[in-house]
């Protein structure tokens, strides 16, 4: 009996183990080597510990977007990445080109980046026309002529540690584009040889666009490539400036196109918006731009007192009147607010006047006094109402003070009566 029970116990213990052993899958082999391709180039170049050959390998291994996608050195440089022997690896018959020349680089990149079928396997939304665009650019044209300094793909995107453009560390991330362009376009000696200015970056950094990008953090703000293009980088033609600015400033561009200036500027070969607003150092415009005075932009073409000068002077007057009225309303509402009156609703209503002011300033580009006057008058009505509300609030404040005086008088006479009673 005892023996039977022992056997039973033994079975009871062994059974679960058997189940586990039978049910367990066969031990796995090492995981399939799918992602990492053989890249002997890296092994050799890394161990060289040489200042010329090792850093590119390190950069490529560290974070290059191509390395992550499974590409090897050979995809750009040619040769055989599976070979350990240097000569075999560097075999020209296997396409080895070594370090590509300046002129070769666009072709090297375009080998893949212009192949729609290939790019679709990795990132279907990427464009494949960069090379054809580049060929239209100043950089592309001069490269073909043998220029050794002009920008090609690697100049802006880097060569070995290439990051996706959405990566904030990429040299062509929106906040870094201006600096990247400036590495060449800020080099005075280099730019002198092309008869180009080298202060463009400094000028740009004073602009409202730079402030929007760097101070307000708006990465949709324009930087170099927004107006000049990415790969087909050329300054916009004089006749297309308004179109380019108009991609964001559509309302202004439309009004400008309707105005007399549109035709006049085209006839005179003047660069549209840039004529008054500048191209790189675009600062906050004010109504002082109007007119033929010292700060006015009209004086270079118009005579003081001519038909247009009269109109713009009137516009200036209207806009300044509206602006000062709005400021006065703000002041009195702020005073009332500081005196303790609740005027938040009146302040909100004043924003309608501020919108009218913006509309009036926009209408200036139409160059029609009637349009500006209409908006200014609307705004004035709102500003006047807000000012009146401010005065009303101050009147309430005065009412409170009068009430205080009365109650203080009563209280003080009560105190006096008390003291008198105490004395008595």
């Amino acid at each position, binding site marked *: 009996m005892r023996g039977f029970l022992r056997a039973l116990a033994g079975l009871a213990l062994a059974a679960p183990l058997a189940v586990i052993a039978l049910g367990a899958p066969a031990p796995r082999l090492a995981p399939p080597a799918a992602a990492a391709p053989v890249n002997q180039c890296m092994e050799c170049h890394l161990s060289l510990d040489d200042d010329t050959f090792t850093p590119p390998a390190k950069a490529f291994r560290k974070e290059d977007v191509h390395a992550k996608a499974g590409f090897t050195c050979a995809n750009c440089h040619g040769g055989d990445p599976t070979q350990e022997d240097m000569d075999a690896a560097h075999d020209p018959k296997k396409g080895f080109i070594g370090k590509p020349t300046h002129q070769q680089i666009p072709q090297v990149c375009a080998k893949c980046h212009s192949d729609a079928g290939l790019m679709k396997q990795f990132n279907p939304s990427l464009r494949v026309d960069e090379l054809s665009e580049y060929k239209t650019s100043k950089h592309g044209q001069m490269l073909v002529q043998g220029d050794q300094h002009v920008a090609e793909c690697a100049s802006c995107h880097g060569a070995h540690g290439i990051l996706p453009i959405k990566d904030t560390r990429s040299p062509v991330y929106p906040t870094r584009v201006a600096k990247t362009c400036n590495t060449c376009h800020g080099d005075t000696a280099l730019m002198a040889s092309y008869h180009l200015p080298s202060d463009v970056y400094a000028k740009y950094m004073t602009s409202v666009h730079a402030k929007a990008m760097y101070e*307000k953090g*708006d990465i*949709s703000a324009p930087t170099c490539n927004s107006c000049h293009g990415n790969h087909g980088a050329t300054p916009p033609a004089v006749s297309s400036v308004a179109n380019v600015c108009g991609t*964001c400033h559509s309302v202004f561009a439309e009004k400008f196109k309707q105005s007399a200036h549109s035709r006049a500027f085209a006839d005179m070969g003047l660069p549209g918006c840039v004529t008054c607003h500048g191209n790189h150092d675009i600062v906050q415009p004010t109504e002082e731009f109007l007119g033929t005075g010292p700060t006015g932009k009209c004086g270079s073409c118009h005579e003081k007192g001519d038909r247009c000068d009269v109109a713009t002077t009137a516009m200036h007057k209207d806009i300044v009147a509206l602006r000062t009225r709005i400021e006065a309303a703000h002041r009195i509402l702020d005073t009332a607010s500081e005196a303790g009156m609740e005027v938040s609703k009146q302040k909100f*209503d004043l924003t309608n006047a501020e919108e009218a002011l913006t509309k009036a300033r926009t209408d200036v580009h139409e160059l029609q006094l009637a349009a500006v006057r209409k908006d200014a008058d609307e705004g004035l009505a709102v500003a006047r109402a807000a000012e009146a509300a401010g005065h009303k609030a101050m009147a309430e404040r005065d009412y409170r003070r009068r009430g205080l005086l*009365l109650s203080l008088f009563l209280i003080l006479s009560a105190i006096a009566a008390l003291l008198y009673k105490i004395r008595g």
Partner: protein
Amino acid sequence: MHVEPPPLADPLLDTRRRWVTRLLGTTLGATILSFLYPVLRYLVPPVTSEPSLSELELPFKASELAPNSGRIVPFGGKPILVFRTVSGELKALSAVCTHLNCTVQYRKERSDIWCACHNGVYNTDGGNVSGPPPRPLLPLEVNVRGDKIVVRKV
């Protein structure tokens, strides 16, 4: 324990004392009335509606808003856009553009929502369709009671 001696029984002093007491009573009474006046006025609620700024009854009727049109209304100190789509549905969105805070407007010609400042475009659900706006416009809940429109924060 010392107690103040009782006042002398002088008729002149007595009259004067009585007048002082009357003066005291009058001034104290007037003072107390001047305190009661604001308290009583305070108890009467004002005509303007409740302060709830999570809910707002609009100053125009539902029947006054035609299809494919919209209006800007202040709500909680910020503008909101109340509009009726082409199909007649009543909707409300925050009217503060998510790009640089300009006030957006309903665009009849394209039945969408547009920001004049930098050409930002939103669809009638508030989604940012094109231009610089990085985020959609936040929706608000719209309820209709009879001909009254009530907008509420979601």
